[in-house]
């Protein structure tokens, strides 16, 4: 058909291929994701200094626009923005406020009067950050902090950072993602990121009620059995299981889920001896993961939080940089000394 909707990459990138919004990992290039991880590495170093702040985004205003509240994610973005010397405004807009007649578009127009340079958006609807990115004033960057079941790209990049930190790279890696993939925006972003960065195999493990209907089309191998799915993997990523899944007949009980898919030391034996265990958090002990694993030697769950700020600093500075460069077309690679 004559219809050609713009693929996500065209919204996210400038004409010369720089990141200007970060909405989804899908369709981005390997080199761009690697640049992101390298830049994040520099920011990890900043976090270890006496003064944990750089002047990069001095005078910029970052608005955390959270339509779904999440103190944890919002705090990481807030800290990241502050370490870049930006001014931060936190707005928690609950669903009830927007249902009073003010549309998302109205909210957006009001905020633009504040001359924000960046919106960090979390929304319950898949695609909301794409909508916002298409509607904002040119020059304003949009970062997706989680939309519906669609994507959570900064979390996925933090996970990639963690994997690279412990495994050195992605070549030859087998990664298993376990649990409620159907409802997980993190899992979708992780799958894209792992495939782009060159992982050998991405596996999904779970009961069929918690796997998307066309899961294989994402570029993964699907397993319904933990022992088979975990065999010889280098990385195990456990997903959080929401309690309400039991009420809507996805599962009979937490106990049965834990017996079949909960990660304990016994199941972890099937993975490689040096396999690491990750979890985007917050964890449900005894539901998807046993304490012996969560607190065990192969768990890297706490370090994931530390790297989170650095990854978000990298994403924010790259996106603002991309916006600046598309506003200043004269800009070149030449950095005058």
């Amino acid at each position, binding site marked *: 058909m004559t219809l050609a909707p713009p693929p996500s990459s065209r919204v996210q990138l400038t004409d010369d291929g*720089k990141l200007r919004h970060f909405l989804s990992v899908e369709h981005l290039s390997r080199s761009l994701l690697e*640049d992101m991880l*390298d*830049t994040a*590495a*520099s920011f*990890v*170093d*900043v976090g270890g*200094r*006496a*003064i944990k*702040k*750089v*002047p*990069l*985004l001095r005078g910029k205003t970052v608005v955390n626009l959270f339509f779904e509240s999440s103190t944890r994610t919002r705090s990481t973005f807030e800290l990241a923005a502050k370490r*870049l010397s930006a001014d931060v405004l936190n707005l928690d807009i609950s669903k009830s406020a927007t249902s009073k007649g003010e549309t998302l578009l109205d909210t957006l127009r009001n905020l633009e009067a504040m001359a924000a340079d960046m919106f960090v958006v979390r929304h319950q609807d898949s695609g909301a950050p794409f909508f916002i990115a298409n509607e904002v004033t040119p020059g304003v960057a949009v970062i997706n902090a989680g939309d519906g079941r669609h994507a959570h790209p900064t979390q996925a990049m933090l996970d990639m950072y963690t994997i690279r930190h412990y495994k050195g790279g992605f070549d030859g890696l087998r990664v298993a993602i376990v649990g409620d993939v159907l409802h997980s925006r993190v899992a979708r972003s992780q799958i894209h990121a792992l495939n782009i960065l060159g992982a050998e195999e991405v596996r999904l493990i779970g009961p069929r009620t918690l796997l998307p209907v066309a899961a294989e089309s994402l570029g993964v191998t699907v397993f319904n059995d933990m022992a088979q799915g975990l065999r010889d993997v280098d990385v195990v990523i456990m997903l959080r299981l929401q309690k309400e899944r039991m009420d809507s007949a996805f599962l009979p009980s937490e106990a049965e889920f834990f017996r079949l898919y909960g990660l304990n030391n016994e199941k972890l034996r099937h993975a490689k001896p040096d396999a690491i265990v990750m979890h985007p958090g917050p964890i449900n002990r005894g539901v998807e993961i046993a304490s012996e694993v969560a607190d065990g030697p192969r768990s890297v769950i706490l370090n994931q939080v530390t790297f989170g700020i650095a990854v978000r600093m990298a994403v924010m*500075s*790259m996106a603002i*940089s*991309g916006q*600046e*460069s598309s506003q*200043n077309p*004269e*800009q*070149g*690679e*030449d*950095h*005058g*000394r």
Partner: protein
Amino acid sequence: MRWNEAEIDARLAAMAEQLADEYGEAPPALVGIQSGGAWVAEALNARLASPAPLGSLDVSFYRDDFDTRGLKRTVKPSDLPFEVDGAHLLLVDDVLMTGRTIRAAMNELFDYGRPASIRLAVLFDIGHRELPIRPDICGETLALPPHQRVELRGPAPLVAEVIEIPVKADE
């Protein structure tokens, strides 16, 4: 105008001599600015009687032209494997142009701690100064017109040449 390996080598040797004169028995910690400055710092260090503590800075996060030029494509982590508080530092860069990079580097150093002193060593000073920053140690001083600058290629062998740069209207 070009400088071959031997010519660069001679300038490095002269700089090492100046360094010894400046600091005597207690050599400073060398801090090279990524990426050319880091090469020069390393080459300089190899010429010292006893090797000094060596670090490197990537000043990307401190540049004053982020608004117009954006972020460099790849940023390397800064690496200062010594205590900055109370240290005597020698900041090393390949080419001194406007002085803005040096200002950014000093800002970054102060976020690590409060050094006892900072001096500046450059391989070339090409006379495009825009800030009151001058080298304490210099391989060669030039007076290039605005449309020219020196480019150092490395890390080994180190060679350099004068290249033309397009002059932009707002600069």
